[in-house]
């Protein structure tokens, strides 16, 4: 199947080989159409104004909340909070839940393969409240090193990635979530990378919080999702203050709105939220079975091709088992930045550097890696072109 035809950027730029999907995905026509449709037919502010247009915009906005709830298996729409991005979702939890319920000496357990967005908010909480931040080690397959002993009665919160943005590995979360709950700790899953590759069921996983980002699942930039269990969101104080999030305001006090609006201060990214539904619908139309089949085949193909280059070292799992389509590597004698520059000159977009994962880089004793991240719309020809260019880059430097 030629899925690229669904994505107008490949028509505009026929030579483009886009292998930076972990940074952001391209957008299908349906998403672009939805954006145009919103501004042409629905544009109005939401949850206010007695006129029909505000009502229609509100219905569309809340329609995405339902679509997101269905997408991740949430039981109730009031468990879905829209944010600017996944980073804001984690910050919201660290600020609101963290400040309210965590105290000096309490432990927050992260892992060494977290994105900076799932580290810094907890380090900020450490500065505010004196909590202790601990990290799970990572094994050669990109899995968490976990034997139960890392979660103790001191552990109050566990915040982990559902898929590494550097190693591509998909860790086994279930035993950690169960162990955390046994000790009464809450669990947040950063599903930024996972959500585009795999169906998610928050109830089955029994996570307390989960974040994801619309632009990484073929949707627009500027919209993130925070899922939180109803009883937790209800107990948590508001994150930001302003319009929309209040019920009543007096000169010396206010009362917050119900969830989820309590956490959505100010005019939200209405267009972005509305358009996100088109992205979810698009994924549903293709189906995760098909997406996973295509991506698994591409990942296996890319891994084999990359392994055939003797001067290339894969960073992370060497097989397609328990991983998504993100592959990091280094090349002997060529800095990752030069790899990316060389590929860029061949119309191939990849990412190089530390990928907002300095802790993992230091842990693996790497200064940087090159990273290709495939989407189901990529092709074996994209991989072939990349491998050919990598060979040329190696020749150039050696």
């Amino acid at each position, binding site marked *: 199947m030629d899925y690229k035809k669904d994505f107008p950027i490949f028509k505009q730029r026929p030579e483009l080989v886009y292998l930076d999907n972990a940074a952001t995905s391209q957008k299908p026509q349906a998403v672009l159409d939805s954006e145009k449709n919103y501004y042409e037919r629905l544009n109005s502010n939401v949850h206010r104004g007695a006129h029909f247009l505000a009502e229609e915009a509100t219905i569309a906005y809340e329609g995405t909340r339902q679509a997101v709830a269905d997408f991740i298996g949430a039981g109730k729409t009031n468990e879905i909070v829209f944010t600017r991005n996944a980073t804001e979702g984690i910050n919201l939890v660290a600020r609101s839940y963290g400040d309210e319920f965590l105290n000096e000496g309490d432990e927050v357990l992260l892992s060494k393969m977290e994105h900076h967005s799932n580290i810094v908010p907890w380090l900020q909480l450490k500065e505010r409240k004196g909590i202790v931040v601990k990290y799970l080690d990572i094994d050669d397959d990109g899995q968490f090193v976990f034997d139960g002993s890392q979660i103790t009665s001191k552990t109050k919160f566990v915040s982990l990635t559902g898929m590494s943005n550097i190693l591509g590995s998909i860790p086994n979360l279930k035993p950690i979530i169960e162990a955390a709950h046994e000790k009464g700790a809450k669990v947040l899953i950063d599903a930024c990378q996972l959500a585009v590759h795999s169906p998610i069921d928050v109830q089955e996983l029994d996570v307390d919080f989960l974040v994801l980002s619309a632009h990484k699942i073929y949707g627009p930039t500027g919209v993130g999702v925070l899922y939180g269990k109803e009883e937790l969101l209800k107990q948590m104080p508001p994150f930001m203050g302003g319009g929309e999030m209040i019920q009543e305001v007096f000169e010396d006090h206010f009362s917050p709105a119900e969830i989820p609006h309590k956490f959505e201060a100010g005019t939200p990214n209405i267009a972005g939220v509305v358009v996100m539904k088109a992205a979810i619908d698009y994924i549903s139309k293709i189906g995760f079975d098909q997406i996973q089949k295509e991506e698994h085949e591409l990942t296996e193909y890319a891994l084999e091709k990359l392994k055939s280059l003797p001067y290339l070292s894969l960073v992370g799992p060497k097989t397609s088992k328990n991983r998504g389509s993100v592959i990091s590597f280094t090349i002997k004698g060529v800095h990752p*930045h030069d790899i990316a520059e060389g590929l860029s000159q061949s119309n191939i977009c990849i990412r190089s550097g530390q990928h907002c994962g300095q802790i993992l880089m230091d842990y693996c004793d790497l200064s940087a890696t090159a990273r290709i991240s495939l989407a189901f719309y990529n092709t074996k020809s994209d991989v072939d072109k990349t491998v050919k260019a990598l060979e040329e880059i190696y020749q*150039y430097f050696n």
Partner: protein
Amino acid sequence: MDLYAQNILDRYKNPFYKDKKLDAVINHKEANRSCGDKVELSLKIEGDKVTGYAFSGNGCAVSMASADMLGDLIEGMTKEEILKLTKEEIYAMLGIEISIRRSKCALLGLLALQNALLSEPRSWSDYHI
């Protein structure tokens, strides 16, 4: 594949000042954490002049070649002259077009050099990049 101009490739592969032993009086390190590049400079100072230059580091061809070529550029310069060096002069020294995405690569050496001589360090924004 013709990735960079020959002069950049040459200085990257056969640097003159890299890992040179120097009886230095100032050592200073700067890193571009977004891409993992690191430059550590050693400078010898006599009076108001920088009379010795060496560096060690790890980075892309542009950052390493730039740090190396900087050693030639500042030969005989006073501290004051070095602190006046601009982004444009570094780009001219490199002799290649530097895109926005490579500007930090090109300027990492200069940042390390100028900060080695300053008590109030400069940051990327001082170069308007």
